[in-house]
């Protein structure tokens, strides 16, 4: 579904990744891990065609990104970022309905089928009860789920999420990632999300993409845990990673 072929990535003059390759399939939840400033967001934006790669190819469904029009891409890849959408008088239903944009007419009118898809997307994200609430009255957790419903309404095979758990409390973080896992497995979607939650990622994700500057290490979760990459990257004088419990320990 999403293939990275030997890509070089940079932010301004600073090179972030070199020779990064990975193949992410449908039905797979992939966690993108890495320290701050290692290029997780830049990579996601490049795949969503919001940014560019300096070398190599991002290939979606066997077609290089450069050959895909933005309208075509909007039906293949949906994107969710951390930005909170606060718009006056915008209901959750209307927000999710905007996700139908790649399929609606010049005015964006919804047909019967579009309405059904919007409602189904809200249901899948577990927020059908918030349908007629204004988005500015929602909590961060509810808001993030509505944004995911919007991505679902876009009916893409792939969904990219940039740190979807960052403003959520602990139970909400787990629940949101479980939702992502369920969507990947049950709706057969390729879901790639960046996160700093090591334990959640290692418990729920099928594969891990780890930014080990300038490399991108990509392997199934179990192999990743056994490989020692994570200890090496996240250990410091103060903390260490325990591969058995998937958690971080403080040195005392």
């Amino acid at each position, binding site marked *: 579904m999403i293939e990275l072929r030997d890509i070089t990535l940079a932010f301004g003059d600073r090179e972030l990744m070199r020779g990064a390759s990975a193949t992410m399939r449908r039905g797979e939840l992939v966690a993108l891990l890495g320290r701050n400033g290692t290029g997780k967001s830049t990579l996601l*934006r490049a795949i*969503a*065609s*919001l940014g560019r790669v300096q070398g190599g190819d991002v290939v979606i469904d066997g077609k290089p990104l450069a050959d895909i029009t*933005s*309208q075509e*891409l*909007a*039906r293949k*890849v*949906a*994107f969710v*970022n951390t*930005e909170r*959408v606060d*718009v*006056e*008088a*915008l*209901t959750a*239903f*209307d*927000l999710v309905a*905007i*996700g139908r*944009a*790649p399929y*609606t007419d*010049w*005015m*964006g*009118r919804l047909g019967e089928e579009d309405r059904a898809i919007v409602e189904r997307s809200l249901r899948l994200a577990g927020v059908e009860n918030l349908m*007629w609430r204004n988005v*500015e*009255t929602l909590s961060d957790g509810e808001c993030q789920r509505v944004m995911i419903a*919007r991505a679902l309404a*876009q009916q893409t095979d792939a969904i990219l999420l940039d740190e979807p758990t960052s403003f959520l409390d602990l139970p909400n973080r787990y629940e949101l990632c479980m939702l992502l896992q369920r969507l990947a497995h049950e709706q057969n979607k390729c879901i790639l999300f960046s996160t700093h939650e090591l334990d959640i990622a290692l418990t729920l994700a099928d594969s891990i993409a780890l930014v080990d500057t300038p490399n991108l290490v990509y392997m199934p979760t179990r192999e990743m845990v056994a490989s020692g990459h994570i200890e090496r990257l996240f250990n410091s004088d103060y903390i260490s990673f325990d591969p058995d419990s998937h958690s971080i320990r403080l040195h005392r």
Partner: protein
Amino acid sequence: MQDSRNIVTPLLFAVLAVACVALAVGDLLIGTTNISFGDVWSVLCGTAEDEGLRTIVMRMRLPKIIVATAAGMALSASGLQMQTLFRNPLAGPYVLGVNAGASLGVALFTLATPMLGIAAMPWLVSFGVTGMAWIGSAAILLLVMSLSRKIRNINTILIVGMMLSSAISALVGILQYMGTDESLKAFVVWTMGSVSTVTIEQLRLLVPVVVVGLVLAIAVVKPLNMLLLGESYARTMGLNVTRSRALIFLSTTLLAGTVTAFCGPIGFIGLAMPHLARITFRTADHKVLMPAAILWGGVSMLVCTIACDIVARSGVMLPVNTITSLLGIPVIIYVVLRNSNRR
């Protein structure tokens, strides 16, 4: 809870449309002198014999009503576009420098040309205040538009537009300082705004341009809806952001630029009426919001001109700008207070 707006929305549209027509008719009847409905009707049917009455209705009141309605609709539609594009509730038709550009044009015409001794040049006179104002606002918008092709971040464009406006205001200030008393007064009168100085000949230009601008505003409702979520989301949903921005800027040039050229700067209608549309229609969907804002714009300007007329009976001719401010500012304060209380 079902979406109650399905029933309320058509009802609100009907009420606003009726209000718009009623106010327009009211404005024909009410003026510095009242004219009876029967008399107005006979003029409109072409059966009136009183030449003076015909002149008042056809050459003074009717053009004024058309100008007021068109101006209100245009400013409100462009204000809504700016608020959504910049994702800023305090954006209005003038954030990109339309006003400043127009005032520079007018200042050059009324203040600078007498200084240079070229005020009587025939080609310049033929442009008139209106032509110069339009050229000024179009020039500024073209400048902002060409800059915006290079600038990704929409807030940077907002800042550039505002700084450009301030710089131009400073230039206009210099011209004002150096201008003669007589030319200064001509300039100040323009800055106060008026809907009654537009002639029937000018209407032939004003109305079609505003109509084209409104058609463009309706044509961008889907891009505007997508832009509600920000430009990143809009692009990943397949929107060509550069092209949409250009269309929105073009629409605003035609709407706000033209109205400002003909009527002078009319404050707060473009800022307040989109908010009133949001509050009354309880939606952020531009398919509803755009026509709602357009109707509210028409209604509000008609109310303002009627208010002007009523005040004028006491012998005080108020500039329309003062009335629109008094009407618009409470709406803005209400919106700002409501937003701050909710968080």
